[in-house]
């Protein structure tokens, strides 16, 4: 007979059994028994945030940078509602995560009890799955299922809602070794016939493009992707979520595509004859207007683990459902065994065309400017960190400049909220990244609007001595909103000016961090160097940048990929 444990003990033992070493949370009434058990052990480290949204973003950054399941722990009611933004962020970007939430006791559910919300109902549309544990006998198996569902197939957040009385009750505990669910069996291997068809189409290509997304990063397929692309000598473009999947400094990399993608990537997407889409989903920010995309004929191979991502916005010719690295291995094997090669003359012509597009130099900016250009700050950050930092971002212009100008050669180095576009994500995500990679250099590229959405986390960074480098591209505007207002709303800057900004230097210092204000281009490099020398300190770098700078190229909403606005 196993020893009897309380639900709270079982919860912690389950986390230990899953190998969880770090969780992010905030205590409250409904989770007090769980916190009591956390207190009595030292295998699972708890990071106390200052707002539940940050707990979930931190767990998210932890997961993205480490490929482990991120774990957050929040209390019932407002604890959960605060966490929803973080959960939706993770859901949109398919991040493996388990969120444990407290709930009012089972006999109080439905009676409008203090701090009661219908957690399962509120989170249902933004989780991969969720559970309410009504009975202690279901607790261990439910947590097992939660980790299994979160990490397998197309990953995503799973929430486990545990009523307070369940954490008090006692039960003998064994952690299930395995779990099987008749209604959940993710596909691993791609259909071999489809892979063969893909090989034929690849060999017939004259103007090919490999277009890859977050699926490469999430499934750890960067190695296989790089091998495939190098072997074929095809051009490769990554989505915002896919950066680092293929080395950005490689000649075959044609940049990010999409709304703020490079001219060459977007033109190649539009005018290719064979498109190999891998772990990507043809979303509106990537291909723009699908009707315009259809103006050109091309054959499409689409490899993805989620069948519902295939033929959702764009009809494809050869769908392959499977785990991306496994399918790529199969594809590489078949390509190696065939004696044929794609038409090399046609490919050379295609590269010539791409190089002509490259000559447009679509990411150029004024390097002689006497005001700091935000692009230059990101470039310097890249140089000083030798391309080896973990870079998180918030959402807006700075996010696009980070994606365009920091060349990611490795996966899991670029951490941003691509799908939901959550301002406030950057700093808490960076905390999670730093905790998962204690020796890593972690920079958060942000703006003065985004950073204020989770600014309270400067306190968490102080408590746990997280030496983040906050690169604040401060243009005194919600830059992307301002850009749209300039382009599409007759220069009427409705509520996009950030009046009454705090003195970020004093703010950082008040939390015991280092603050620096940089106002001249010639000081950028030195400031960054100094910041990274302060290895044990969080440094808040407040760069006063050009207010009028815009992100180019730009495919306006509803337009096609070849209808870019260029500098």
């Amino acid at each position, binding site marked *: 007979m196993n020893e009897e444990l309380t639900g709270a003990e079982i919860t912690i033992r389950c986390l230990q059994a899953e190998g969880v070493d770090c969780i992010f949370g905030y205590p409250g009434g409904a989770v007090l028994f769980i916190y009591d058990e956390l207190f009595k052990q030292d295998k699972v480290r708890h990071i106390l945030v200052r707002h539940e949204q940050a707990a979930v973003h931190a767990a998210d950054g932890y997961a993205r940078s480490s490929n482990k399941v991120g774990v957050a722990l929040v209390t019932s009611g407002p604890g959960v509602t605060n966490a929803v933004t973080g959960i939706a962020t993770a859901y949109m970007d398919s991040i493996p995560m388990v969120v444990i939430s407290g709930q009012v006791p089972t006999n109080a559910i439905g009676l409008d009890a203090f701090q009661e919300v219908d957690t*399962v*109902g509120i989170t*249902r*549309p933004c989780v*991969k*799955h969720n559970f*309410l544990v009504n009975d202690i006998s279901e607790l261990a198996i439910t947590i097992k299922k939660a980790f299994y*569902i979160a990490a397998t197939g197309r990953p995503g957040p799973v929430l486990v809602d545990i009523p307070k009385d369940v954490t008090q009750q006692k039960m003998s505990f064994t952690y299930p070794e395995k779990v099987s*669910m*008749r*209604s*959940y069996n993710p596909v691993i291997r791609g259909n071999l016939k489809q892979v063969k068809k893909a090989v034929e189409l690849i060999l017939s290509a004259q103007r090919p493009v490999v277009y890859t997304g977050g699926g490469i990063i999430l499934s750890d397929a960067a190695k296989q992707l790089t091998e495939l692309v190098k072997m074929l000598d095809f051009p490769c473009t990554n989505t915002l979520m896919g950066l680092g999947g293929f080395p950005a400094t490689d000649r075959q990399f044609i940049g990010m595509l999409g709304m703020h993608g490079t001219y060459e990537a977007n033109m190649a997407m539009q005018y290719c004859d064979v498109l190999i889409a891998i772990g990507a989903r043809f979303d509106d920010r990537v291909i723009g207007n699908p009707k315009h995309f259809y103006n050109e004929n091309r054959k499409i191979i689409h490899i993805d683990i*989620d*069948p*519902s991502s295939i*033929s*959702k916005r764009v*009809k494809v010719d050869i769908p392959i459902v499977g785990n991306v690295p496994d399918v790529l291995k199969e594809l590489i094997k078949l390509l190696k065994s065939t004696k044929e090669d794609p038409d090399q003359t046609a490919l050379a012509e295609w590269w010539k065309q791409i190089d002509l597009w490259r000559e447009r130099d679509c990411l150029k900016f004024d390097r002689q400017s006497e005001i700091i250009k935000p692009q230059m700050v990101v470039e310097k950050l890249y140089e000083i960190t030798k391309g080896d930092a973990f870079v998180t971002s918030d959402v807006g212009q700075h996010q696009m400049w980070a994606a365009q100008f920091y060349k990611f050669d490795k996966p899991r180095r670029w951490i941003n909220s691509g799908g939901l576009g959550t301002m406030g994500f950057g700093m808490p995500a960076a905390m999670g990244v730093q905790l998962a990679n204690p020796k890593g250099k972690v920079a958060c590229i942000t703006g003065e609007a985004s950073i204020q959405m989770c600014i309270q986390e400067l306190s968490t960074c102080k408590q746990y001595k997280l030496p983040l480098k906050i690169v604040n591209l401060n243009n005194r505007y919600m830059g992307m909103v301002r850009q749209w207002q300039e382009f599409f709303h007759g220069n009427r800057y409705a509520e996009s000016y950030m009046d009454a900004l705090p003195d970020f230097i004093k703010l950082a210092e008040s939390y015991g961090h280092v603050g620096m204000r940089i106002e001249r281009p010639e000081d950028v490099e030195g400031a960054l160097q100094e910041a990274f020398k302060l290895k044990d300190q969080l440094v808040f770098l407040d760069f006063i940048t050009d207010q009028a700078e815009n992100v180019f190229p730009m495919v306006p909403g509803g337009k096609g990929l070849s209808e870019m606005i260029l500098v």
Partner: protein
Amino acid sequence: MENEAGALSRVAGLFSARGYNIESLSVAPTEDPTLSRMTLVTSGSDEVIEQVTKQLNKLIEVVKVIDLSDGNHIERELMLVKVKAVGADRDEIKRLADIFRGCIIDVTDKSYTIEVTGTSSKLDAFLEAIDNSAVLETVRTGASGIGRGDWVLKV
């Protein structure tokens, strides 16, 4: 799908969140009490139906999805109609119910309650055949469907 609390709301939530329409939905446990079977009637282009099917399959509690209209199938819906029935109308309504193979299952001196079973379009036809002003109340179950012949939907 798994016969679990909340499974139905996941299906309903999916349809409203993605803008698909539900024409009818009927659900009850099967001979295996751990499973429920749902018949859901929806409409849309082939692309939409493909997405509906894929999205339903993604729900963790959904065990299997089939499109019954892909093959031969049988579809039945049950309707209860309370109609005004006085004077000469009583005979007329009785005859009409017989024609549609309906049964009068409750009688007062002013009304009949008629049970009609069939495809949804047959039930529509019955309502059209009855004088609209005579209909006091209707309640319908939504369609239930099953494949024709020896073919069986098994988990």
